[in-house]
């Protein structure tokens, strides 16, 4: 007999867990309580003991994915029943009777972890609640967003922007299968977009309608205040019902209702992780932001001359390349900006290399891949690395390794036509430099007003690690190089 094991609530009120590793494969014989998998919840990594003695027939979800409580994860071929009475087990032919049904946590969705000391439980609590509202699922499907959903959702679980972006770059192993199933399941129930639209009825009547495959939005209520009664539902069956018997999934709506004034989308994937990383950074590291506006005409002229030079013409050296190089040089003079605050160890980590993060806007959201040992690259090397990195980021093929281990970051907001901002530090780094757009502006030049190429640099730094003096000197050094590239000779 095949027994399906569904993911139980492994803590108190948890809604999802990540399968870290499977220790068994289909065909393996397992003993009762044999350690078959490691599963990580928001609270702990736990060892999963086999609920049956038998042979593993199928692993429903691969390692590395986040699974919702109640979803099948493994099936066993169980011979006999000596050690496993039927009551709590789940036969394959009765998938509704989940192994977790009998236990209290089956109603875990609305609960929040309430014991202290268990890490970021709150961030992981919301998803299934939305799943439970079928209308939301249908709406997502309709808007086409569901296609991206499973891949990103399946690999969520990293901690910082870097980690999570890695998962985005990764190919989705089981894209679609389970999440699409979810969506399909969810359309069993009438698609509704908000509580206000839900037809007035009672739980027993809703249950009846669901069992009969009737969309309550198509039923006219005759009870008090338009309440839909049991009889209304039964009367509706005799009227026009789609011949296939399939539930109506997208009620025909016209008029203003077709364009809801607000919609709700689950917070998840890269958005969720970016949010977490930004909150962690903004409310952990005391940020100081300084601005410096400089005349970069000499740098622009330098770029022009390089482009004219056969040896550099194809190198693709741009203003970002020069800023990156200037930053690496300036780091050498002010090492404090290239450090990390290690709170748990009570130590400050000084990096003797520069892994230069480049904030990249991609169709999936913000990722910050980094150029390893950027300080060892010359201008051409930097230009090539930048080109490679941005191409990969936009294509979503960034190697996971390139998304972690950054030490300092540059973000180019000039490409959006912006001059300055107060960037938030990539978590774990001490400084982030935002470069604005180059603009032709009237500027003081040799005692006269002249039209010059002007750029604003914005530098945020972690005041725990960097004092105003150091941050200012670092920013001034970069400005000096951009304003007069020849001054590099005084710095190296």
């Amino acid at each position: 007999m095949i027994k399906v094991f569904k993911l139980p609530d492994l803590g108190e009120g948890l809604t999802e867990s990540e399968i870290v590793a499977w220790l068994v494969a289909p065909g393996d014989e397992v003993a009762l309580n044999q350690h078959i998998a490691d599963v990580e919840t928001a609270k702990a990594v736990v060892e999963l003991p086999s609920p049956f003695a038998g042979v593993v027939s199928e692993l429903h979800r691969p390692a590395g994915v986040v699974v919702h409580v109640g979803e099948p994860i493994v099936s066993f071929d169980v011979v006999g029943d000596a050690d496993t009475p039927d009551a709590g087990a789940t036969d394959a032919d009765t998938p509704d009777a989940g192994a977790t049904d009998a236990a209290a946590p089956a109603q875990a969705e609305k609960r929040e972890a309430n014991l202290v000391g268990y890490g970021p439980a709150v961030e992981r609590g919301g998803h299934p609640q939305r799943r439970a509202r079928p209308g939301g699922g249908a709406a997502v499907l309709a808007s086409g967003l569901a296609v991206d959903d499973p891949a990103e959702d399946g690999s969520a679980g990293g901690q910082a922007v870097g980690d999570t972006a890695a998962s985005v770059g990764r190919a989705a192993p089981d894209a679609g299968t389970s999440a699409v199933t979810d969506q399909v399941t969810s359309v069993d129930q009438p698609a509704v977009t908000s509580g206000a639209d839900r037809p007035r009825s009672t739980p027993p009547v809703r249950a009846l309608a669901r069992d009969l495959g009737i969309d309550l939005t198509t039923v006219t209520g005759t009870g008090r205040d338009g309440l839909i009664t049991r009889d209304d539902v039964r009367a509706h069956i005799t009227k026009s019902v789609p011949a296939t018997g399939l539930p109506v999934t997208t009620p025909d709506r016209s008029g203003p209702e077709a364009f809801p004034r607000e919609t709700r989308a689950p917070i998840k994937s890269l958005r969720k992780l970016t949010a977490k990383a930004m909150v962690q950074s903004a409310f952990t590291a005391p940020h100081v932001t300084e601005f410096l506006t400089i005349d970069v005409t000499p740098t622009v002229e330098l770029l022009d001359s390089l482009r004219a030079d056969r040896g550099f013409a194809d190198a693709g050296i741009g203003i970002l390349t020069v800023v990156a190089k200037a930053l690496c040089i300036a780091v050498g003079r002010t090492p404090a900006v290239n450090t990390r605050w290690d709170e748990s160890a009570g130590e400050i980590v000084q990096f003797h290399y520069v892994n230069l993060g480049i904030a990249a806007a991609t169709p999936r959201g913000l990722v910050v891949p980094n150029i390893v040992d950027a300080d060892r690259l010359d201008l051409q090397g930097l230009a090539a690395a930048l080109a490679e990195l941005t191409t990969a980021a936009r294509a979503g093929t960034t190697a996971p390794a390139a998304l972690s281990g950054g030490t300092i970051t540059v973000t180019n907001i000039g490409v959006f036509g912006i001059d300055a901002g107060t960037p938030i530090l990539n978590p774990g780094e001490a400084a982030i430099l935002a470069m604005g757009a180059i603009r032709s502006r009237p500027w003081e030049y040799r005692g006269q007003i002249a039209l010059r190429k002007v750029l604003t640099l914005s530098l945020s730094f972690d005041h725990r690690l960097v004092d105003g003096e150091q941050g200012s000197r670092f920013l001034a050094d970069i400005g000096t190089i951009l304003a007069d590239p020849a001054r590099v000779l005084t710095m190296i």
Partner: protein
Amino acid sequence: MIDFSPQPVQLLSLDGERMPRPDLDPWVDDLDGLALLALYRDMVVVRRIDTEATALQRQGELGLWPPLLGQEAAQVGSARALRDDDFIFPSYRENAVAYCRGVNLTDIVKVWRGNAQSGWDPYTVNMATPAIIIGAQTLHATGWALGVQRDEVDSVAITYFGDGATSEGDVNEAMVFAASFQAPVVFFCQNNHWAISEPVGLQAHRQIADRAPGFGIPSLRIDGNDVLAVMAATRIALDRARTGGGPTFIEAVTYRMGPHTTADDPSRYRDPAELAEWKTRDPLLRLHRLLERLEVITPEVEAETQAIADAVAAELRAGCIGLADPEPLSVFDHVYTTPNATLERQRTDYAGYLTSFGSQPGEGR
């Protein structure tokens, strides 16, 4: 006389050597090899129960489980010192005490499965059901003890709680009243070193046992992983209570080797070296070594003990999984001891509501 020294009293070295203590020896002299083997069996079985229940939680069959791994000697040694007419007021971790008391295995787990509001009838085994409210049971124990004092019987109340509970008002109030009335109650504190994620040193700048004398209650600080020391101390405390000596406080110094509950991950706040150190003081290991010295334990006895433990675990699993879901209307049972009109109306209304899902089985699903 009893030595109330601050050092944990030991009768059994880590190597399982019986260490003489003239003040305590008379209280455990009666334990021969077979009696010690029985204690060992209890400890092996309760550890097996604990492992099985933890597995059942991981398999979705229990909502939660508070493991007692490492505290077997403290629980078995004290529980086996009691008389049947003594009354136990436990916290939620005393599952080994419940086992020794003869509580049905399924009754132990049904609350953790979310299957019942409480597991058993306290009066059939003279043991209250687990108190989840930290320390509340100490007041119940003192109150019960005041009752038997007035009844002029020599039964004793024993209440179990942890190091964390000693910071609760309830425990302190219970000790004030117990001392005031010299109530026959034993305060049995298992100092397992961790109040969830908080180390004991944070809330106790002196030994926990030092607190009791401030209330006028003598205290004993014993090695809680030494089943003989535990039994001797409990017998002393029970004897004092029975003979009008009033309350006694026992601090059994032990260690919670597992998580606070199955929802906890101690690796996030606990140094692994600490656990490794306490593993050398494992209560089962120590008693096993003594039994080896006494040549009581043989491979056959060992296998037999393991078979008993496995059988108990299988019985626990079968009982747990076989529990029928409670009837929805049973939620109204046991709310009041006497009929209550409001509750009856609610019961009727709810029954009507349930019927409205349809008469055919499954139709309302």
